[in-house]
């Protein structure tokens, strides 16, 4: 069975860079508050979320690669 | 195999002998003269508009009016003309309006939507690429079953392009009603005729295609009209294409962007002024009693007025709206392009994109 496509959980789809951080940190994007246009989750939102979120991975990537 | 150069009028306006029928008719001759005066007046106006920033780069036909007008005069309305960029005389003769020509040279594509000669090709800038069009048009005319012909004019430089040769060769192989007129003005921008080819004449290039090649004095409108007329008559009879080399001289710069003094002497140019086509025909007409100062002045007045009127109309024509760029790209706008038209603020439905 092929891995299912990751569905963006907000109203707005995630950009590839944001999706990558979210996936690598293994967080549920619906927990993140989007500050972008129409509530879009931005890279900064994820990084801020990871910083203060205890459940986030200890070595959350600081930068998309 | 030196073909003789057809000429009826010497540079001094005297005739080499009786003029050929039906051109000998004074009305016809005056018509030819008027056509050349109109072309020259158009050129003058165009250059002055360009100099004052109101027209794009412009290629004057100064000195070559007889080739252009003589050729057009030999054609019927139903024939098809494929000009280069220096044949305003022929275009005006065939019914392209000076308004349209100003629009074209002013950078407005509506200038090629000729109301007059509906099937004539627009001005062709890429040198010699219109000769193949004339060949295709000639095939169409032949398949149509009528006796119409296609006529293309190019410069001496155009004879160096493969397109010229391939077109002649195909027209010859298929015996098509196509006439190729070379307005040999001795220069292709800065490259003199002698450097363009080692061929002794341009007319003899016809031999490569197995078709007749003739030379004519291109400053003698009567000779040009007669020569092209004979070629057209041959073509109408099914005898196929002809190449005509009309010997003339470019008295002006190549275009308004050129400075011919960089590569040719003033003496050379002034020498050629003695052979120019308007004086020649006017002198003949005057000698024969068909022309005088009053008629000349009246003509000049009439022609200038027509041209000024056209220029004003041109200058008063508002530019198209941006979406006009798409108006005629396809017969109907393909769906994938709708976004682009919309991004121009335009309405895909607005055909011509006129304001």
């Amino acid at each position, binding site marked *: 069975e092929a891995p299912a496509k990751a569905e*963006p959980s907000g109203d707005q789809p995630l950009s590839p860079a944001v999706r990558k951080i979210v996936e690598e940190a293994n967080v549920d994007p619906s927990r993140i508050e989007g500050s972008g246009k129409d509530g879009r989750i931005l890279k900064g939102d994820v990084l801020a979320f990871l910083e203060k979120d205890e459940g986030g991975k200890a070595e959350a990537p600081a930068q998309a690669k | 195999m030196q073909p003789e150069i057809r000429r009826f009028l010497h540079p001094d306006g005297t005739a080499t002998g009786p003029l050929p029928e039906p051109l000998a008719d004074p009305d016809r001759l005056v018509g030819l003269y008027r056509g050349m005066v109109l072309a020259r007046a158009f050129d003058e106006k165009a250059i002055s508009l360009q100099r004052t920033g109101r027209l794009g780069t412009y290629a004057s036909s100064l000195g070559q009016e007889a080739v252009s007008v003589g050729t057009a005069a030999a054609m019927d309305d139903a024939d098809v003309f494929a000009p280069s960029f220096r044949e305003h005389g022929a275009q005006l003769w065939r019914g392209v309006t000076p308004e349209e020509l100003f629009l074209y040279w002013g950078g407005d594509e509506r200038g090629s939507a000729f109301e007059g000669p509906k099937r004539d090709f627009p001005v062709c800038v890429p040198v010699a690429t219109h000769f193949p069009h004339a060949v295709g048009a000639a095939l*169409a005319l032949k398949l149509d079953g009528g006796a119409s012909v296609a006529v293309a004019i190019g410069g001496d430089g155009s004879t160096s392009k493969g397109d010229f040769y391939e077109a002649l060769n*195909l027209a010859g192989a298929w015996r098509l009603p196509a006439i190729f007129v070379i307005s040999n003005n001795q220069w292709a921008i800065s490259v003199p005729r002698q450097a363009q080819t080692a061929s002794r004449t341009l007319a003899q290039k016809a031999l490569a295609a197995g078709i007749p090649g003739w030379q004519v004095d291109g400053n003698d409108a009567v000779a040009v009209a007669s020569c092209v007329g004979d070629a057209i008559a041959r073509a109408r009879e099914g005898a196929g294409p002809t190449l005509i080399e009309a010997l003339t001289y470019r008295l002006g710069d190549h275009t308004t962007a050129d400075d011919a003094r960089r590569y040719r002497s003033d003496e050379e140019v002034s020498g050629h002024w003695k052979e120019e086509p308007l004086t020649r025909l006017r002198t003949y007409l005057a000698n024969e009693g068909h022309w005088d100062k009053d008629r000349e002045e009246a003509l000049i007045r009439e022609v200038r007025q027509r041209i000024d009127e056209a220029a004003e109309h041109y200058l008063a024509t508002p530019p198209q709206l941006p979406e006009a760029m798409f108006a005629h790209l396809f017969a109907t706008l393909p769906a994938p392009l709708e976004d682009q038209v919309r991004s121009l603020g335009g309405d895909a439905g607005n055909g011509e994109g006129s304001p």
Partner: protein
Amino acid sequence: MSGVTMVEALNLALARALREDERVVLLGEDIAADGGVFRVTDGLLATFGADRVRDTPLSETVIAGASVGLAAMGYRPVAEIQFMGFIYPTIDQMANHASRLRTRTRGRLSCPMVLRAPYGGGVHAPEHHSESMEAMFAHIPGLRVVIPSSPRAAYGLMLAAIRDPAPVVFLEPKRLYRAVRETVEDTGEALPLDRCAVEREGRDLTLVSWGAMMLETRKAAETLAGEGIEAEIVDVRTLAPLDARTIVDSVLKTGRCVIVHEAPLTGGFGAEIAARLAGEGLMSLVAPVARVAGYDTVMPLLRLEAAYMPSTDRICEAARQAMEFS
């Protein structure tokens, strides 16, 4: 063996066009007595006569240029260039005239011509006989670029191309000329231009291709299905103007895209498709857009041809890599 080959389908379409519209004229090298070096025009001289099926001298420039002239006068020339490697001399006419005659004359003249050429590699042809330069023509505004990938598509798209009032560059993937047979009803029905065809539906990734590479693409989809990967296949069919919508919509669903073409990678038409995805389609992408293409090198002679041509393996591999991004 039932059905017809692409060569026969094209022949049917040309014959029908000649029959239904007397303005249709065929011209090209060796298309008359010889019936074309691939036999696409076989028998048409005998049926329609030498006025309408015309062998030209060996002159690609004037084949294109005379077609422009014919088309401007209301005829519908269908010109053959014997191989795409010899099509370059026509670009001047196609770019400077055919594509813009209507624009320049505000619709007074138009240019309803078709420029046909077999194209592509994989048939062990001589040097210069295997090129795929469709991207050059697709970059010329005012032209349509149409490429069929089956006998039926060839029939329907050729009729559409001939009837279309715009100049159409019609590229025939010669590896498909006789590779497959298909029932083609000679009904005179054209297929729509300017539309990509979703040839197979799938939820996992989108394979986009055209021409002969559709063969490998279809095979890849089957192989992938065996691995549980359901690929959607889009056959581009009309490269220009490009129906990007259909591709973007497919990727909106699948999130992944592998584009397949045999022309060299850099500046190939796959770049345009990937660019549309990087633009309008970006937010739906879960994996990098892959292009499986020819290499950025000269199309090799036949001994290395197989190494050059994109293979089913390379497509599958790209697809699997895309699937690794969840």
